[in-house]
């Protein structure tokens, strides 16, 4: 029985991981940009990022550009591997169906 990573399987976290996975390794995406891509609220995104950061799937960096605060997010190596495994699991779940059809 194939079971995908529950942490990633949640819809908003899935979108976050999918968006960050499009970036090159060690490339950061600004919080506001990620919010626009994932299409959610600041609070919701912040909460899910906290969960992913707790699992070491994402790294979060806070700094200032001039006097303006900036938050950036990046997929960690562990997160990238977990996402690849998650996608592989989904394909594995679909595989028997593909054989039937």
């Amino acid at each position, binding site marked *: *029985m*194939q079971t995908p990573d529950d942490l990633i399987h949640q819809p908003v976290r*899935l979108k976050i991981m*999918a*968006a960050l996975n*499009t970036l090159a390794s060690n*490339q950061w995406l600004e919080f506001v940009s990620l919010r626009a891509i994932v299409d959610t609220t600041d609070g919701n995104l912040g909460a899910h990022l906290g969960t992913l950061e707790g699992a070491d799937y994402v790294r979060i960096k806070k700094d200032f550009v001039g006097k303006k605060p900036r938050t950036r997010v990046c997929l960690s190596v562990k997160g990238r591997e977990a996402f690849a495994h998650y996608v592989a699991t*989904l394909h594995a*779940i679909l595989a028997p169906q593909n054989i039937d059809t």
Partner: protein
Amino acid sequence: MSPSPEEAAAALRAINSVQARAAGFQDYRAESRQLMLWGVVNLLGCVFTALFPSFLLLIWLAVVIVGLVAGVRLARIAEEVMPGIVWRYLLVVGSVLLFALLLHVVMWPLTPRQGSMIVPLFVATLYVIRGAQSRPRYVIIGAGLALLCFCCFLFATSHYWWWLALAWGGTFILSSLWLRRT
């Protein structure tokens, strides 16, 4: 508990959708920087032409070189996300310039007013084609640019270059700001 095949398929569709959205976002961001650059460059070119019409050729030569150098620098920023973008960028800008040059040769003699329409109308067409193939905002940018520049050509009897500065440079600058609001 393992998700059903339907749920797995839905999750994969969601991933594809977000990845397409993220790619579009990055594309709009990269294009936004180029539009701002060429908007300012074209605006300055038109303004200097309005002020010193007898130096038209020199002005546009200088303006295009400055724009090209700055454009390559900007394209290099996006190179990490979009490998090979610098060469594709040079190919596109080179093609536009070559098209303008060849059309001048074919249609010669052209008045400066006629010649000024070649690049914006060609670029507008490229944007519409690009938009039809991938990202809808480019259709609006291309159509807007063509419409405003053509109206300028038809109706701006006096202060032509000032109006063109607004129609061409202004459209690019506003489009750049619009693409940033993704």
